[in-house]
């Protein structure tokens, strides 16, 4: 073992230790405080109490807001998957006039029109259309934002699936709609699942849009309720914040583990907005 090799090893493990510390320390509080009675900002060894979870159950807006997050994300995901699948299939199989220009425009739009750039007109649009405090309105707005990237990713996916099944089904006299429902959808199911998970994850974590467009606390999703918990009403309620934060985070982690196990974690250029 040369000194250089030893130094290299020491350097490597020091770097790994620093990295692990940097990425772990901020998360420690989230896994200890929910199980500690009377938590402070300090990270302490928990005494494994379940009282904080009891407090979350009794809070008037905590669990309903998780339900709202679920409604918003599943609603958006359904719309995105159905609409993007239809559009991507047609764009992949039929040479519509102006198709390439359309795809280019979609990609451009999805990357430049962000929540930040569009918050003023979206807010005004929602006021004019009476969509403030409407979960359906928010779902439509979120769907509009996610669709371009979803169509783009799904079209790529459909381009790479073989057309021979559709052709055989046609030989046996299936109608185009039957072909789409019974042949294409099963073929592209992994792609559809990816888009669904991607949409759910996007909406589940989205703060800006519901914060702008939902002022009724009974309709707000968990992201907004979390923010309210630590900015309003003087002293932040750390029991609620830590425990509720954990409950709000766990589904994302489970979904990530599920996706990476089932499909292997593939990521696309536009996955985050």
């Amino acid at each position, binding site marked *: 073992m040369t000194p250089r090799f030893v130094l290299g090893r020491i350097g490597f493990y020091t770097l790994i230790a620093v990295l692990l510390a940097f990425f772990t320390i901020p998360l420690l509080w989230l896994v200890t405080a929910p199980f500690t009675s009377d938590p402070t900002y300090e*990270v302490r060894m928990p005494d494994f109490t379940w009282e904080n979870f009891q407090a979350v159950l009794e809070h008037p807006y905590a669990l309903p807001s998780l339900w709202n997050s679920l409604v918003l994300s599943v609603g958006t995901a359904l719309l995105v998957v159905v609409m993007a699948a239809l559009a991507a299939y047609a764009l992949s*199989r039929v040479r519509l006039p102006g198709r390439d220009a359309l795809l280019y425009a979609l990609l451009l739009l999805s990357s430049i029109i962000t929540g*930040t750039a569009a918050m*003023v007109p979206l807010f005004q649009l929602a006021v004019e259309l009476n969509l403030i405090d409407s979960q359906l309105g928010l779902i439509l707005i979120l769907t509009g934002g996610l669709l371009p990237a979803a169509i783009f990713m799904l079209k790529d996916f459909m381009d790479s699936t073989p057309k021979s099944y559709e052709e055989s089904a046609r030989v046996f006299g299936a109608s*185009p709609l039957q072909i789409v429902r019974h042949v294409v959808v099963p073929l592209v199911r992994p792609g559809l699942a990816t888009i669904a998970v991607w949409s759910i994850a996007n909406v589940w974590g989205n703060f800006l849009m519901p914060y702008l467009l939902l002022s009724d606390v009974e309709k707000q999703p968990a992201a907004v309720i979390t923010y309210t918990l630590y900015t309003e009403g003087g002293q932040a309620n750390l029991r609620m914040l830590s425990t509720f934060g954990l409950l709000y985070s766990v589904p994302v982690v489970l979904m990530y583990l599920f996706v990476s196990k089932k499909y292997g974690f593939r990521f696309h250029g536009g996955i985050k*907005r």
Partner: protein
Amino acid sequence: MAQAISPPEVIDGDPSGRRGGYSSDAAGLGRLRAGAFVAPALLLIAAFLVFPALWVLYLGLTNYRLTGAAAAEPQFVGLDNFLDAVANPTFWNSTWLTLQFVLGSAVIGQVVLGFTIAWVLRDRRGPLKRLVEGLVILAWILPSAVVSFLWVALLDRDGGTLNALLGIPGFAWLLDHPMLSIIIFNTWRGTAFSMMLYGAALGNVPPSHLESARLAGASGWQQLRDVVFPHIRGHILTNLLLISLWTFNDFSPFLLTAGGPDGRSEVLAVHVYKVALQSGELGYGAAVSTIILLINLVVAVFYLRLLRSKK
């Protein structure tokens, strides 16, 4: 591309014999139905993405306000809002802070850290690699409201973990160093994307090239410079453009510092929110949004050109 043309024998073998009614795509969809498939998606995109973007251009030219007389009858004021913005020190302050934020957290923080992690773990398999990658990805996928509060807790002046570790109780990170705080926060938050992209890119560098460089006596840094960087130049550029775009539009500094204290961390995203939706100056806010849109457009066009030239 996947232009769908059925082989002739399939059409000949069509049992229904309605050849004329079928078009040449695989499922026999035809242009009309294809158009009907695309229409719902395009309608939603037009209503909630394209229209707002065009509307913001118009709003920026009016004196529209959230409340008061100008709310009822907004007037066309031409480029006044833009001139106001250019003459407004708060706007320039926000622009400068945004530049610091993008350069510090994305271009330097995420790229350097992401590449470093990908590079030191490139030949490794097993639990250590999975642990490091898992933690980095965890910081990326958790909801922004939760991680923001985690950092508020970490950086808390009195009870925060960081001050306890460093032995400096009472040091107010978010008040005294708000920009540094959000830059480090966003580096922590967003490194995963760069790490994964460089991880994939480094997998494409032919091992034989590295091997011959090593045999020729190249040091680690020389291998990086002469073998690795030329191979992943395209990835670096893609990475830079995307994360700059995302960081530029990121609203999460609001969750951490709300732009304060005294606007010292008020990046443009937060600035728009404050002037338009808190102070109600929708017209002026729309003008700033227009500027953001234009900057996004420039970066995105660069990015798409790059994608095309790769193909």
